[in-house]
């Protein structure tokens, strides 16, 4: 009997070992699949474009150069669009998160008599979308086309963000608010002095969501402001480079060196492929540097919001 048990135990651990090994191998493959495209892009961005055209760049640059980045950072249109990108991200996130937090606070108050009405009014819009054309006409009537504010106002508040923040505030001990009320604090004081400071983890999460959304947006630039270079953004510029090199789709090399440098030389030439690689790295690095630090928070926020939403 003992022997049988021992044998069973052993067989199970062998099964377990096989399972674990396959699982770990699978995870390593997954990591490679996730990382390779980006690492390859980094390598291409650091390789001389005339050499990249020959192909074969994988993870390590063959002819190392900073020139692609120099080109990206000295191009006036790119620098100007970087400013717009930063502005829309900072302003959009600041205003958007503040607005969402305020609405979330009001509907987290059990005694607020419009609690249900406000909640339903917001949640309904998650599934009710007027569509591209009516929205476009509205923005035209509001004189938002050709303006910076078309990036900020229409997407000011995200319903999902409200739900995430509300759930968090509802989880704060009500006694805190009660004692503040005893001391004569109004709703604004309670919001700014209690709810907001105590909700910092969720505010950080929502800020990340909003900031990423703003930073990565290109469609509103394309629809509303494509003819105004001052209001272009990095993602839109990258999108233009992408569709240019896609003109010869499939052939990523797109040998035509559109941006041949005046100095000539072998290295001082950039191809759309190299510009695209450098720009991809430039637009992606800020987010990639930030999100791991907020991981703990956004996993929590997403769980609350996703399940309740």
């Amino acid at each position, binding site marked *: 009997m003992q022997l049988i048990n021992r044998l069973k135990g052993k067989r199970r651990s062998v099964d377990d070992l096989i399972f674990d090994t396959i699982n770990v191998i699978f995870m390593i493959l997954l990591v490679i699949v996730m990382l390779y495209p980006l690492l390859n892009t980094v390598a291409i961005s650091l390789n001389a474009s005339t050499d990249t055209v020959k192909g074969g760049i994988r993870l390590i640059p063959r002819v190392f150069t900073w020139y692609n980045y120099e080109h990206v950072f000295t191009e006036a249109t790119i620098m100007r669009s970087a400013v717009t990108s930063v502005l829309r991200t900072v302003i959009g996130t600041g205003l958007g998160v503040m607005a969402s937090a305020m609405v979330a606070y009001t509907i987290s108050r059990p005694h607020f008599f419009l609690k249900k009405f406000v909640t339903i009014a917001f949640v309904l819009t998650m599934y*009710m979308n007027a569509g591209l054309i009516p929205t476009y006409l509205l923005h035209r009537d509001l004189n938002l086309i050709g303006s910076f504010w078309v990036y900020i106002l229409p997407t000011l508040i995200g319903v999902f963000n409200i739900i995430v923040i509300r759930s968090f505030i509802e989880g704060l001990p009500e006694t805190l608010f009660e004692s503040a009320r005893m001391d004569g604090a109004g709703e604004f004081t309670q919001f700014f002095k209690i709810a907001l400071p105590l909700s910092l983890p969720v505010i950080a999460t929502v800020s990340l969501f909003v900031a990423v959304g703003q930073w990565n947006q290109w469609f509103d630039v394309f629809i509303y402001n494509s003819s105004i270079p001052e209001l272009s953004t990095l*993602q839109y510029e990258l999108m233009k480079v992408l569709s240019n090199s896609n003109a010869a789709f499939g052939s990523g090399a797109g040998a035509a060196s559109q941006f041949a440098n005046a100095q000539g030389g072998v290295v001082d030439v950039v191809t759309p492929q190299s510009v695209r690689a450098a720009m991809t790295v430039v637009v992606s690095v800020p*987010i990639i540097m930030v999100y791991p630090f907020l991981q703990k928070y956004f996993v929590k926020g997403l769980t609350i919001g996703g399940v309740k939403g």
Partner: protein
Amino acid sequence: MADAANVAGTIVKNKPKIKAQKGLRYFVRKSIEQKELLLMSMPFLIWLFIFKYLPLSGWLMAFQDYKPARGFQESEFVGFDQFKFLFQDDRFLQVMRNTLAMSMINLVLGFVTAITLAILLNELRNVGFKRIVQTISYMPHFLSWVVVAGLVSSALSVDDGIINILLMNLGIIDEPIMFLGVGQYFWGLLGASEVWKSVGWNSIIYLAAITMIDQEQYEAAEIDGATRLQRIFYITLPGIKPVVVILMIMNIGYILESGFEAQYLLMNPMNMDYAENLDIFVLRYGLRQANFSLATAAGMFKTVISFIFLFAANKVAHKLGEARLF
């Protein structure tokens, strides 16, 4: 949060109930009493009305032959003509086929891969390794579609694209394939790109649901001699079922939302017959050809279908005794 089933319970509990009217006096009294809360929410209610509800009035255009120069009032009403035109238009039917195919593929692939990844992550024994894999798997979610489309088209490129090189080295193909130039491949490529971008992110919620499953069940199963796979199939999967059902309902509401950015950015004249979906159709007719009425009709059709699907899925889930959204 207790367990996955409870979580599902809260959603049903939160079911919106519109209270009986309480009269104007009550409203005025409360408004004065809670003027600060009112002051805090009012600007954003106005915002909501202007930006989310007001544009719905634009649906009027779908029943008109809208001429921008004339405006709503002067434009001629044509009833359901725009819709009739749409359903007789071969291009629209093709676009509908693409939209449905792509969102079905994305829906199924998305669910299966995210649930699988969550379960496999949960089975990893080394916490440090698990965390590293998780962090890396979230990364593509934070990249823009512009970036991802660039990465996809270079990976699939005919000269020096990694996919072609791998397939050739493995001896599966003899010549590089121009993946993005063949329409029939588009749906699969799009599905794969979506999975690459969001599988890690989508697994978060399932992983959270798994950690809420009662650990004693696993211990009991282990004593009874259940294998790892048995534990996965008989404990983990049933344990996360409520969350899966709810997310399924929510996603079925988006059945005609097959996405826009990915298709638009990966589309080219060669794969267009398979890549063009409703959103691109609306964009093409609406803004490029300024046929506002037709584009609005197509967009309105999308929202109405979404609502029908959402309610139907909710009903079916209710009938089957599953958790439901409302």
